[in-house]
């Protein structure tokens, strides 16, 4: 055996190993990771875009079918980032292979970079695939492509971090499903994915402003059509705020070893 010592300030190879491992897991479950969300999104187009949308007028000057595209992408982005990331870290905890990660010369930051980076990358790819699928149904224009990508990456990263936290918190598979099903999906439906919150009656409109998802969808839709429910600056600030909150929670998890180390 060699007696070389290999101590670097940053274990890039370790990050890459985790990243590759997670991407390989997605390839093995390609059907579940990519095809299912694309089919689900297409069904939304058929139902909301074609069946209902044909009876609706334009929203903020955008045809209804095109109006819902950013919201649909966000809906998939939220749920897939959460499930990818939470499952990615929960699985090693559940089957016990986490021992190797914990005993490796890898920092908390590098570990998060590997897991969350892979989950976010998968979600961004998925978002772009759904966008491409959408162009088959409705004509789409993107006014601010750079901002569109920025919102896509920021949101994917934020929800992957959130998923990472859930994956560490969860004590069972039910809890893993709990947050996406019971919190994120309702918030997204009530967050203006399929309508502008201006269409809501007064009290509900004010109520909606407490829903953080409203800001995420609104900012993303602005990057497409230049119209938004709330100011784009506020959207960006809200996105960064949630990101910072998730980062703080992850930092606390590693500081205390919460549910990772006894």
């Amino acid at each position: 055996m060699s007696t070389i010592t290999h101590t670097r300030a940053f274990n890039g190879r370790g990050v890459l190993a985790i990243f590759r491992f997670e991407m390989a897991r997605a390839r093995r479950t390609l059907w579940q990771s990519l095809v299912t969300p694309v089919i689900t999104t297409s069904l939304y187009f058929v139902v909301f875009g074609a069946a209902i949308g044909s009876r609706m007028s334009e929203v903020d000057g955008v045809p209804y079918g095109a109006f819902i595209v950013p919201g649909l992408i966000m809906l998939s982005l939220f749920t897939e980032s959460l499930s990818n990331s939470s499952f990615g870290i929960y699985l090693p905890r559940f089957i016990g292979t986490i021992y190797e990660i914990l005993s490796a010369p890898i920092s908390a930051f590098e570990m998060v970079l590997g897991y969350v980076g892979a989950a976010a990358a998968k979600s961004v790819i998925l978002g772009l695939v759904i966008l491409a699928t959408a162009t088959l149904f409705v004509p789409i224009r993107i006014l601010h492509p750079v901002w569109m990508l920025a919102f896509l990456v920021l949101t994917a990263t934020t929800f992957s971090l959130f998923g990472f936290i859930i994956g560490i918190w969860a004590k069972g598979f039910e809890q893993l499903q709990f947050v996406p099903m019971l919190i994120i999906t309702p918030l997204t439906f009530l967050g203006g994915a399929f309508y502008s919150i201006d269409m809501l009656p007064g009290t509900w409109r004010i109520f909606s402003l407490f829903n953080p998802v409203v800001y995420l969808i609104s900012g993303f839709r602005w990057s497409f059509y230049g119209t938004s429910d709330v100011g784009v600056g506020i959207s960006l600030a809200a996105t960064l705020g949630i990101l910072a909150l998730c980062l703080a929670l992850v930092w606390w998890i590693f500081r205390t070893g919460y549910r990772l180390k006894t």
Partner: protein
Amino acid sequence: MDRVDPTAVQSVISIAGLTKTYASGLQALKRVDLEIRRGEIFALLGPNGAGKTTLISIVCGIVTPTSGQVLVDGHDILREYRATRSRIGLVPQELHTDMFETVWGTVRFSRGLFGLAPNAAHLEKVLRDLSLWEKRNDKIMTLSGGMKRRVLIAKALAHEPQILFLDEPTAGVDVELRRDMWALVRRLRASGVTIILTTHYIDEAEEMADRIGVVSRGELIVVEEKTALMKKLGKKQLTLHLLEPMTAIPAALADWNLTLNNGGCDLEYTFLSSDEGKAIPALLRRIGELGIGYRDLNTRQSSLEDIFVSLVSERA
């Protein structure tokens, strides 16, 4: 605070005052001090729940110590964890494997995770040494329990560690694998790797280890060279199979620690290994003088297992 003596340079692992109290209040380790010498095979013996796995897990970085200090090759396991962990390979007790990964994929992952550049030649050697080369493209879920154990060893060796921890390596392992594993451990030791193992197969610790530490209820009861431990604590027993049964031990033999067994047919004499050479001839002479006839005699030496049981019960 307990601090490792910095002059103890020949130790590859120095543990000082290591204590671990779990959140449940269970005190798994109570002020353990231990020096592991470079290049030795060290066996940790103890019943289930004694704290062996906790000790290993702290050194490897899986469990956070409550207090005390651990140095690996002079580096602190908490402050300089990159330096310490990159030197250590761990084979866990349970068969924790990624079912859908291939053997080759998983050892490559392990090497990368520990920050090393890919080295197909090294990984091939490791897999061949463990008779896993033919299975390299198989998914781990298709392998038998023994093969999965080999995969875990291969993963631990993928990053060329200088120290290898084997936690209960032969639990539930067939004879062939056990033999292969011990051969591998000997080869690793010959190449300079320090090996720390826990095992319930005490005869194997007796066969393999250079030194033995006995752990009971979170305390390290004794650390000793294996041969010294056997000599110091090993008891010998002489059994005389008498021609005629005896009802009581004659008063003339009261100086010896004798018992009558098997309905008075066997006279047993228990003595310490250190008294060897003095006690038996005197006893046999005396028995001859008393005219007690015997048709056969045998002696037996207590195994490490006997020593272990007596040490643990002594403290209980």
